[in-house]
Structure formats: C-alpha cells, structure tokens
C-alpha cells in the first residue's frame, strides 16, 4: 500500500503497516530471521483490511468518494483514451471549467466524453469551481450532446460533483432551466448515452448529465438527491447529523443497485480508487466498452424507448 493521507478510520491499518516496516528494518539491522512473523502479520493485515473496507459505513464511503487523491475526470481521460480533443465553450460567452467535454478514442471506439472536473489543489479547485457547474456548463454539455447525436458518437458522461453552483449569476442565467433542458434533451438523443458516477453525484447537478441508457457507479461513489450535509441541516437542523443523513438517504452504490436506480457497480481496488488508479481506470474502460457494444445494436428509436422505459419505471408508490 502506497503512503497516502490516511482517513480517520484507516489509521489502524497504517499503524499495522508501520509495525511491519519496523520489523523488517529490525530484521535487516540485527540479522535475526523474522520472515515468519512478518508473513503472518502481513496476512493478518490483509484480512483486517478486507474486513474493514467491505463493511464501510455510508459516511466512510463518503470520505473515500471525496478523497483528495481520488482520480478526477481528466485523470481518467488520460488513462482510458488514446486520443482526446477537448471542445470548449457554450458558444454564448462562457467556457465553464467545471464541465469539460470533447471527442475521444477509447480502444478504437470514437466517443463523446463529458465530465465534471474537480481539482486536487486550491488553484485547480478555483479553476474548476470545486466541480460545481454554472448553467453555462450544462449548456456546453448540451451542445456536445447534440454534436454527438449528429455524428453518431456514443456519449459517455463521468460525474463527480457536489452539485450545481448556488450563486447569484447562476440564478440569473437559469441554473434550474439549464438542468431541466438537459434532462429533456437527453431523452431525445438517438445515440447511446452511458453515465458513470465517479465520486460525488449530488442532486440535479449530477442528473443534468445523467439521463442515460445505462448508469453505473464506481464502488465507493455516491448518488443522492441532496448532500448529506445539506439534508442534515434541513431535516435535522444541524449539519452535525450528516452521518445519520448519509445513512438514511441510501446513497451507496449497493443501495442504488438494490433500488434499481443504477445498472451496475464498477469495482474499485481495496480501499478505494486512489490506491490503484490504473486498475480503476481499466475497470471503468471495460464497463464503458461493454455497454457501447450492447447499446450500439439498437436503432435510434430503440435508444430513445430504452431510456424512456428505464426512467418511466422509477418511483415507489401505492395505488388502491
């Protein structure tokens, strides 16, 4: 395991690994054979890790989904594509940097690739506005959707956003309308649309790119109507209840698969995507290619019907 900023609940793992390291050093310095002890300890540590990571609480998963070392949209772009040409701007005065998109090749397959971008540093976060798009970002995405539709390119949207930006200008230029229009226009596309939630998939800001034929989540990603913090401050009137809200909102990939809201979960390495970028990227790529293969058999009309039927079924109510 590479040395990364440990999360609170990971500290015990790091302590064990420090101990193993100590024993190795001791063995080297003194020449005492500790191989058996070290081997046992390594095995025990592995068991412990598997135990820990397969029983994460929603709020622990939330910390992984928001981990500062978690790969971002652009990281995946560089790992899964062999060619990528970014297309800028909404053609109406703005190039929102929180939503990026362009044409790309994934293993000989041309695609339109669109995603929300978070930064890893303060400077990057300012540029990408912490992954919170403005209306202009959604309008840029819409332009790219229509471009893809014209040229029969499957569309891949990769989402990691705490939500659409709440600001004065965003309201003036129609944040709600921009998202609504995207929902409606995505339904009309005749080219396959595949969405993967990479990290945070919060509220309308995420859905504005996700009315897709297939929706997948990375194992530790979350998908929710509102951030657990936002929910806690409204329903419990205290942001400190975010843990409980995360639990109640059923935001994990397992929950959403069970509720029929997503089509599958993409496996992450033990501990989360940040421990092995390449492996995560490869799993992501395989799922994308598999879905394109499946969906490309459908006609334009079938693509639309498939999407309609998918969302038409969603919702739980009683009729009597």
């Amino acid at each position, binding site marked *: 395991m590479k040395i990364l900023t440990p999360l609170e609940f990971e500290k015990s793992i790091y302590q064990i690994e420090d101990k193993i390291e100590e024993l190795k050093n001791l063995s080297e310095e003194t020449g005492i054979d500790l191989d058996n002890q070290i081997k046992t300890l390594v095995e025990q540590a592995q068991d412990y890790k598997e135990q820990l990571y397969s029983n994460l609480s929603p709020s622990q998963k939330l910390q992984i989904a928001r981990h500062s070392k978690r790969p971002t949209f652009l990281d995946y772009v560089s790992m899964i594509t062999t060619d990528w040409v970014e297309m800028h701007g909404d053609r109406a005065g703005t190039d929102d940097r929180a939503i990026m998109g362009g044409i790309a090749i994934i293993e000989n397959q041309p695609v339109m690739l669109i995603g929300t971008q978070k930064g890893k540093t303060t400077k990057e976060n300012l540029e990408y506005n912490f992954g919170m798009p403005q209306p202009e970002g959604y309008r840029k995405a819409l332009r790219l959707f229509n471009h893809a539709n014209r040229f029969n390119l499957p569309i891949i949207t990769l989402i990691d956003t705490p939500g659409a930006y*709440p600001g004065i200008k965003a309201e003036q230029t129609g944040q709600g309308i921009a998202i609504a229009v995207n929902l409606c226009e995505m339904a009309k596309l005749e080219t396959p649309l595949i969405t993967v939630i990479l990290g945070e998939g919060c509220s309308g800001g995420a859905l504005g790119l996700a009315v897709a034929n297939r929706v997948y989540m990375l194992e530790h990603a979350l998908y929710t109507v509102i951030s657990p913090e936002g929910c806690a401050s409204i329903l419990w009137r205290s942001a400190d209840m975010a843990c409980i809200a995360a639990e109640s*909102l059923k935001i994990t990939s397992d929950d959403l698969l069970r509720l029929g809201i997503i089509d599958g979960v993409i496996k992450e390495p033990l501990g989360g995507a940040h421990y092995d970028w390449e492996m995560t990227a490869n799993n992501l790529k395989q799922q994308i290619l598999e879905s394109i293969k499946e969906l490309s058999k459908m006609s334009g009309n079938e693509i639309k019907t498939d999407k309609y039927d998918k969302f038409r079924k969603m919702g739980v109510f009683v009729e009597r």
Partner: protein
Amino acid sequence: MSLKDWFAKRKKKQLNVALVESKISGDDLSKLWDKCYNCNTQLPKKDLEKNMFVCPKCDYHFRIGAKTRIFQLFDEGSFQEIDCNIYPSNPLEFVDTMCYKKRQDEARTKSKLNEAVITGIGKINNWEVAAAVMDFAYMGGSMGSVVGEKVTRLIEDGIKRRIPIIAITSSGGARMQESCLSLMQMAKTSCAIARANEEGVLYITVLTEPTFGGVTASFGTLGDIIIAEQGARIGFAGRRVIEQTIRQKLPADFQTAEYLLKYGQVDMVSKRKDLKEMLERLIRIHSGALKQGANK
C-alpha cells in the same frame, strides 16, 4: 437623497426581506389570512377570497392551495380529477426527526390532500386541457414518487388526447425522504415532456409562490411557454444556501417573478386575475398546431 432618507429606505428594505422570509417558512397561514403580509392591512377573509386572495390595497398575491387554484382557473364543474388513488409509501423507511410515514399522515391532515399535486382534465373558457396543480401545504409541495408519477401520467394523457398540458407549480423541491427515487422523478417527468415536444403538444407552465429546486430544474421550467405569477419566488437554489455560499446578503427582489423576467428566464409575469384569460389566449393562438385540440 439625504442620509436620513437613505437609512429609512434601507430599513424599509430590510423589513421587506424579513417579511418574505417568514412567508416562505411554511407556517400555517390560515390563522393569519386576515392580515396582508406586505402592507399589514386588516382584510376580512371574505373580501380577500372574492379578490382571488390578492390584497386589494397593495396587490400582494397570497399563496393559494391547489383546490383554490382549480376553482379560480377552470370553468365551473369542469375539472375531473384523475389518479387520485395514488398514495406515497416509505420505500427507504426514512426517519429524520419524525418517521416519513408519520409526516405523510400529518401532511394529509393539515392539507386535506393525499399528495402534493392534483391532476385532472378541465376546461379553461371551454378549452379542454390536462392540468397538474401543486399544493405547498402538503410537505412543502415536494416532489417524490407520487408527484412524479401523477405528473408523468398526466403528460402522457395529454399527449394521447392531444390537448394542451398545463403545470402549475408550488414546491420547495425534491422530497428528501425518498432520496434518489425523488431525483429520478425529475428525469421521468422530463422524459415525458420530451415526448410532448416531439408530438407537438403544447405544454405551458405557471410558476407560483414558491417554486424551487427539483421542480424548477425539471418539469417546472420545461414549458413551451413559462408564466410566472406576480410576486412569486422562483429559483433553483434556496436563498439561504446561496447566502451561505457567497457570504453576502442578497437583494430583496432576488428570485422574484419580476427578477426572472428581467433576466430573460420566463416569458411573462401574470397577475392572478389575468391568468385564466392569458392561458385561453395562448391556447387559442396555438390551436392550429394542435391537430384535434381545437374544440371550439
């Protein structure tokens, strides 16, 4: 302007903000009906009702429920409710400070409604329309599975009958207690509107006090024509969320119908008394495009 005047004006402005805030908090208005929120005039409830719940002194538009709206807008006795037998359930077994089931019971008692929207077929000056009318009194008009399903069925029905579809919104947004299932209602309703677009069936939305969040970001603002009722608060993010994010106070007229008109987000602002006639005119002008819609 003298400094004294400036302070007086500023104070008045701040007062207005405070009034608006309390209006949105969803307190039981019935107790206070007789006093205008804006000009503080004491108004006999009967007069207010006769004036469509608009203050005769200052033109302030009170928030009204779905049943009142239907009574005001549709030809007498013409509105036939559909899908009134759909009830919410508790798919996530959600509990916050109260169980979701209990919240539903309380909302039903308080609002005398089964859910936050009434859908049906009715007539506006003899023009048949499919209409969804939301009610803020039922859990803040929030959209969960039931609202999404009823609105979607209504749109599908309107397309089948080839009659104009009207949505009158009043909602705080998505219903958190149904989490992602609520979020998906935004997609579901928008997919249905996509079909109405493709079929050339007219869809008009009327945004009323207040319309926010998931409803603004889905069927609320997808109207071929968007009407905002005078004075209504309409937006995506809530005022408080924005204030916390940008750490500054917002102007008093922020997110009002008039503000949205100024920024090109709605086609028009309508007074309540003019709404019926406006809808009729819009439908009449479009009736040529509706193959069998013109029944007059």
